[in-house]
């Protein structure tokens, strides 16, 4: 993996065909393509998908954008559904009903609504049972498919359609759930958090590790949504960069319980730099709301310190 080259991996055949109906510049499809590039070309895969933007836009009967076998079942059960598929693979192999050289990998995609909220039980079950699969959460911080409703992944103060900013409201009142940490506490062999950085090396390497580590793995990928976050679509890479440089979205991995920071900013930028680019936080920059920014910064600092502490621990 040390000889990673974006140019080389971009020449691999695409496993998500163009022509799907996701928005231009959508973070979810960028994440999917990046994860699938980490599959070795000779390996086949079964892709699972929770209900959400990705599913309704990539597999509209009679067309599918997926080059691999694909199963969408419902909103809250992507973890359980792929548990069944992965178990079927083991039993068909065991009983000699698949050729010796047929290698299948199992990857499921869910948005934050289908993962942090309604699908959490199913995900937790699949992780605890240790199915040899990767669950990828494309976290865009709200129920985007149904029209930008808050989820437990939505950051504090975000303006969503169920936490609208108004005379009596500054947006969402609660902090976001730390799902990567929750899944790490399931004692699975591999958990990582990533997003889109410069040459996609971080995402690629983590996806490859997740896919090729035996047992259950979880990837949490921040995938900006131009509609929900209200930024200029071409700015996606800048937004992701600022999420990392402000330590809003730190890059880390947890391998067999060992926490490691993948990247430490030389100079941690103030959270305003990340928030200012997004319409959903516009109200934070109004006169009189300075304290909200202070609160937001405090929360980012607290979580960053907690993460550093976890990463410094001997294991």
């Amino acid at each position, binding site marked *: 993996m040390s000889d990673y080259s974006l140019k080389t991996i971009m020449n691999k055949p695409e496993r998500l065909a163009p022509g799907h109906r996701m928005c231009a510049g959508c973070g979810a499809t960028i994440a999917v393509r990046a994860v699938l590039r980490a599959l070795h070309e000779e390996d086949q895969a079964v892709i699972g998908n929770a209900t959400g933007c990705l599913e309704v836009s990539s597999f509209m009967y009679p067309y599918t954008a997926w080059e691999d076998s694909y*199963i969408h079942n419902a909103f809250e059960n992507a973890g359980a559904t792929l548990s069944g598929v992965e178990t079927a693979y083991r*039993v*068909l192999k065991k009983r000699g009903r698949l050729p010796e050289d047929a290698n299948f990998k199992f990857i499921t995609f869910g948005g934050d609504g289908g993962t942090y909220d309604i699908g959490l039980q199913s995900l937790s079950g699949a992780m605890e049972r240790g199915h040899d699969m990767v669950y990828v959460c494309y976290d865009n911080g709200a129920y985007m498919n149904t029209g930008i409703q808050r989820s437990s992944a939505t950051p504090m103060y975000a303006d969503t359609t169920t936490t609208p900013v108004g005379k009596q409201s500054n947006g969402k009142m609660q902090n976001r759930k730390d799902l990567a940490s929750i899944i790490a506490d399931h004692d699975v062999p591999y958990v990582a958090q990533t997003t889109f950085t410069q040459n996609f090396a971080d995402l690629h390497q983590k996806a490859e590790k997740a896919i090729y580590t035996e047992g259950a793995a979880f990837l949490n990928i921040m995938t900006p949504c131009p509609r929900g976050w209200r930024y200029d679509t071409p700015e996606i890479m800048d937004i992701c960069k600022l999420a990392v440089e402000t330590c809003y979205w730190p890059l880390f991995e947890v391998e067999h319980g060992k926490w490691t920071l993948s990247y430490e900013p030389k100079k941690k930028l103030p959270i305003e730099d990340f928030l200012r680019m997004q319409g959903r936080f516009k109200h934070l920059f109004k006169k009189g709301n300075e304290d909200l920014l202070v609160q937001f910064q405090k929360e980012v600092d607290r979580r960053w310190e907690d993460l550093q502490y976890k990463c410094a621990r001997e294991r």
Partner: protein
Amino acid sequence: MAIKERMSGNEAVSYAIRQINPDVMPAFPITPSTEIPQIVSTYIANGEIDTEFIPVESEHSAMSATIGAEAAGARSLTATSSAGLALMWEELLLAASNRLPLALALVNRTLSGPININCDHSDGMGARDTGWIQIYAENNQEAYDNFLQAYPIAENPNVHLPIMICQDGFITSHAVENIELLEDETVREFVGEYQPEEYLLNPGKPIAVGPYSVSNYAMEGKKNQEIALENAKQVILDVAEKFRAVSGRGYGLFEEYKTEDAEYIMLMIGSAAGTAKQAVDDLRDQGKKVGVLKLRVFRPFPAKEIAEALRHAKAVAILDRCESYNGNGGPLGGEVSAALFRNKVMIEAVNYIYGLAGRDFTVSDACDIFGELEDMVQNGKEVEQYQYVRLRK
């Protein structure tokens, strides 16, 4: 050679599962079906079968994983009761619409609330419009025999639908009765290997399952499901015929007990049919022309066949072990009445609700019902057309 044994309904279904040795079984414990995954787990632990058991964290996940496994190309099943089936409800619809021939051992128990663990049919009846085949048993022998026929029916290319094999909670599932079992070899030959045409794990031939179905296609998909369910009727009869050849036991869409010359017929599902048959025997001794029609196949609903079977009766008592909360009767009452009307069989039909949440149903209850039908027809007694049996006044 048939094997003579004594076992409960749960043991009988588990024994059938052992003989079939299916590929994948995800399941979650719930009374009274819990014994089935327990017994299967023990078979696996002892190396008697090599089915993969998935101890899921809920019934919703049980059905979700069963769907995943079946779509992947594995013969799959689960077992549940009551609230477990209710929690699966969304997934029941998906199993059927994705045309997955998986099996479910349902041990009928009432739905909450208030919470109660005993038998009625509100769980199975609640799932009556989910697109599944539903076959009900009177006793452990039928539960066993029906389960052996499940996959040959469901996997038939003209059907390709999920199948629910139902037995009455505790009354059948926990009561030990005599039973005749088939040899393992006979069962394996009868059920055969599962050879799906298209599946997720077909190397080099990927498929996609569970699309967003646009309005332009969705309605045809639903009609195809309906056609498959209609096709199941003949397939159920064909499979029953093959089963008779290996077991000597015959099955139809329903069983007619002394109905040939019967003036009064009691129509019902499940274990209470045994009680009703005893009442028929007793009343026949007194010269009464009475009979029982025990419905085995509730989905697909054999409307025409039932209407024909009742054509020459004077009155039918339709017994529902389930309230439908529509102010008009139970599910069986509604469907049988519609069948009679549509086929122009204009006989008296009274709908009785009995045995909810484990309330006893006795031979004398059945005799009283036959008496009431006779009183209505012969003496013009006014009878409530939708009433409860053994209700505390």
